[in-house]
């Protein structure tokens, strides 16, 4: 790791101002940033790391009226073992408790988890070996390379510079993202409140819609009936450490008038399985319906040869989790 300046921020304003300066990056738990620095994956090596974990009182977990509020600096381990989360958003506790590895869960935060950069091996290769579109480069190497873990629902076109559009097929593999989507979470930042459908995005060195210097401060989850009837499934090749190849969150309201299904690891942002939701609306789950919903969830997929298995996984896992709901 190369030398850099280090600032322990004590206020959000201080951190935000510092982050607006060129060459500054934020670190909370550091689970995403420090390996990236060690591997030297960025086009420009950061000059300054702003430690935002030193900002007090941002690691709370509390219920406030009809909302579960989680500070962005709450660790995954704290979320997993929180009675409040277990009671009011059990699949969030499950997802947090299975992410990464036990030791990393003690340090990494919910804010860092939802803001993490893609795990694409072209993006992550040492010494910025592939200066890909997601880093502002010319192309997405996975489009023609080994894309077995990449999107089956196409790439996202985004601006790498004013007027310059490129595509990225790296997927969002965060553990918590699909869960927060089906629980209709809100994301509070230093500048605004962002709804679940609008938070995740694709940009240069960005997996969210956060602007430069904008800091995620809180996640709000409405205490709703969805949280009480929900499932989370994490599909990995290894039972520990792995990022999910595919993860799935399902929630349904009490009268089953509305199902929420979100799948991670299959698209550049968490994928809402709208066709399956529409199919299921207002209906009781039967084996036949679950199977149809699995097929509907995978509709529209345009996989590459190497990642066609994800279509089968969607069909199977959606079916199984609906039956287990």
């Amino acid at each position: 790791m190369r030398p850099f300046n280090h600032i322990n921020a004590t206020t959000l304003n201080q951190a935000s101002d510092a982050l607006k300066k060129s060459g500054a990056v934020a670190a909370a738990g550091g689970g995403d940033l420090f390996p990236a620095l060690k591997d030297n994956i960025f086009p420009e090596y950061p000059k300054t790391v702003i430690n935002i974990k030193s900002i007090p009182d941002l690691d709370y977990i509390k219920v406030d009226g009809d909302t579960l509020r989680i500070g962005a600096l709450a660790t995954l381990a704290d979320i997993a073992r929180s009675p409040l989360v277990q009671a009011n958003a059990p699949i969030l506790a499950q997802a947090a408790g299975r992410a990464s590895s036990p030791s990393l869960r003690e340090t990494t935060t919910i804010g860092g988890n939802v803001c993490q950069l893609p795990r694409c091996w072209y993006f992550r290769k040492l010494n910025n070996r592939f200066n890909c579109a997601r880093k502002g480069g010319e192309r997405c190497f996975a489009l023609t390379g080994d894309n077995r873990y990449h999107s089956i629902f196409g790439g996202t076109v985004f601006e790498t510079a004013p007027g310059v559009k490129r595509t990225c097929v790296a997927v969002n593999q965060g553990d918590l993202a699909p869960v927060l989507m089906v629980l209709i979470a809100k994301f509070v930042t230093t500048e605004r409140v962002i709804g679940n459908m609008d938070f995740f995005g694709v940009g240069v060195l960005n997996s969210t819609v956060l602007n430069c210097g904008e800091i995620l401060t809180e996640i709000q989850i409405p205490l709703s009936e969805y949280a009480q009837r929900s499932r989370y499934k994490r599909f990995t090749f290894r039972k520990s450490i792995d990022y999910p190849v595919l993860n799935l969150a399902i929630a349904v309201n009490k009268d089953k008038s509305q199902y929420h299904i979100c799948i991670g690891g299959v698209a550049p942002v968490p994928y809402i399985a709208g066709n399956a939701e529409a199919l299921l609306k207002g209906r009781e789950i039967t084996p036949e319906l679950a199977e149809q919903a699995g097929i509907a969830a995978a509709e529209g997929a345009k996989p590459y040869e190497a990642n066609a298995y994800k279509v089968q996984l969607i069909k199977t896992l959606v079916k199984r989790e609906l039956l287990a709901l």
Partner: protein
Amino acid sequence: MADLTGANGQRENFRVVGKPNIPGLTSYAMATGIAKFGSDFNVPGMLFAKMLRSPYSHSRVLSIDTAAALAIPGVVDVVLWNDPIFKEIGSGPLSGKKSSYLPNEAHCEGAEVGAVVIAESEGLCDEALQALIVEWEQLPFIVDLKKGLDPDFPTIRGPEWDESDTYGPTSVTSEGHTWMATHYPEDPRKVGNVSWTTKIEGDLEAGWAEADFILEYDVNLHDVVSLLPNPQASVAWWTDNMYKPGKTLRIEGAVGRRGMIANMYKVPDDNVIQEGLFQGGKYCDWGLRMAQEITPLLSKRVGGRPVRCCNTREENFDMCVNERHAHIKLGVTKDGLITAVEDNSLLDHGAPNSSEMTVYDRDWNGYYSLKCENIVQKYTVVDSNRGFMHTCGQFVPYSWDMVTVGIAVLAEKLNKDPTDLARLNIHGPDSQKDTRPVPSFEACLEEGKRLMNWNWHKAGTKRLPDGRLHGASFRYQMCPRHAFMKYFCKLEYRGGVVHFPTQGPIAGWFGTECFTMIAAEELGLNFEDICVDYDYRAEHTDEAGGSDGVTGHGWIVKECANLLKKKILESAVKEAQIEVMRFGPMEMPKPPSPLKGYTADELDIMDGKVFVKADPSVFVPFSQATSETISADYGGNSPKSAWATTFGRRFDTMNTSWCEVAVDDETGEVEILKYMVVADPGKVIRRTSLESQIDQVVFFSQGCQLLEEYIMDPETGVKLNGNMVDYRKPTTLDVPVVDKEILELRSGDGAYGASGIAHNLANSHLIITAIHNATGVWVDPPATPDRMLKALGKC
């Protein structure tokens, strides 16, 4: 050949050898972090070094502008490939280098090339490397072997890698078998990137004629990494030593004996100090990495200041076992007897100077376990830029699975239990013509069947209550023991205590503990009675090579211990005759010894006493047996090893492995329900070592078959997953505890009838075969869900 001829070869009762839970002498140090590995050494005034590594799979450094790097405060030096200093280093152990020590051509991505930077910190080294302005020439590369077969593809190895000298006469063992041949004189000469070589035994045409049908099948092996768990690192510096002429080199972290390093740096052994004991665990892999060799050179460059060089985890992902695609034809009678074997394999030659032994092995394979003597092995070998293969023995067990798969395919075709087909085809103890049963094989087979409740079914015909498909498989193999090396042992009785001086180094297999147990057994002592003196100057080394070396080396220790025992008893008898004690000019009467009047033959040692065999109540404490300091040295070869000289054409100790899996055919997930090893290592020396060797080798095998593979970008040849997240070594949650049943038929040819255990339990296809039994489809390893679903036609 049973161990019956040496001292105590027929020992029936063991007090120490085989005893469970003998603690590792260095376990506390390793478990508590006291142990210092190469990367742990911090020396005052230490500098750091890092090598430039190629970002391309095949490249040449044309020039490097170092000005910007050298301008960074704290950067001490940048040494380029053409610096005369690299002429001062000789060949490293097991890594003979044909070109410059630091070349300007890289034959795989990540290879060290062109420059080394030296700076005050590792971070500054990184910064300096980034500041180098390197003019690269990208060269044609091969990471797809089939592309390498194209005769029009440019040649990727220069003339300095000409192999014409390897087409000469081949080595022949004392048993008359050729071995370690890369090429035979009759082989066609290499063209471009492709070599061909054929090993012919027996009469293939006669074998086809005897057969009722021909069975063809493919076995594909992918390349995997052994992954040394500790980062390869060394720190070295040069000092003046008032007691020795010339400079003294202090080096820590280099694998191997100090003599190897002394040889590289052309200094006397006595001028090398290597006190650090710990190398870190490894599974074979005898190649030093540049980070472990280069520091003395760099220290010299900076006037003797200590220099440390440490590989990163990612830099550790160099290749271990190479890719191979075998198409095999068997001639078979209607009863299932194999009459002919033709193996056509396409293999990866790896980057230049990879281990030829690893690539070209056609000796240690399952074919010689068959009664069939008509065997032709045709290899097509393609130069590649996939990676560098260090010398290691994992290829040995892998080759055996050509037969494991063949028997499974045959079982399916004939609807016969594969264990019966194995029994039909395996030859007898003494030769391929011998039709008698092999006792060790029979014992391992029967015990395995019993413990597995073995009830073979045809492929794809059994579902478990939870809906998953059930499959099971078995394989057999010979237990290994190499006897290539001369071993040496010295034991010393001093001040009433037996000392066992050894230089280590410690690489994870606890050989010293095994040797100590053997010495204690022979001397009638307990394990803790022997004082192990770790001393880098000692002649003895732990580097016997895993279990297969330990049992051979153990023979030497056994002989040495008996020599020492004889000398102690003779000295005790001599001293018992003395009636007067002298202290300077004074004399005083000595109390009469109870051993007075006996001969050495009439005495024995047991439980801390030297006693009269005819009347054990007459004794002196072992610590008072003699006031003399007595030493015994013994060196040489252990008895010939059937494994190392006949490659499976003779059998002594055997093993069987068994696997039961459940396959979810909707998700492609494979779960190993049970993995069992029934092994007859001949005689267990240290059970903890034996069991952990089995665990380690099975872990390796499970990882290779379920998860591990190198993935390279097809466009650039760059390795995409050389890290612990993406390469996916299994975690302990991914594989079950290995059930082990250990038999001791004592038919090995090491100490006490022991043989080795580790290597030959490694396999590439036991789990894959069980998956086939479950699903009816063959999947190439690793059987990850994506590959499984594809094989099952689900995507």
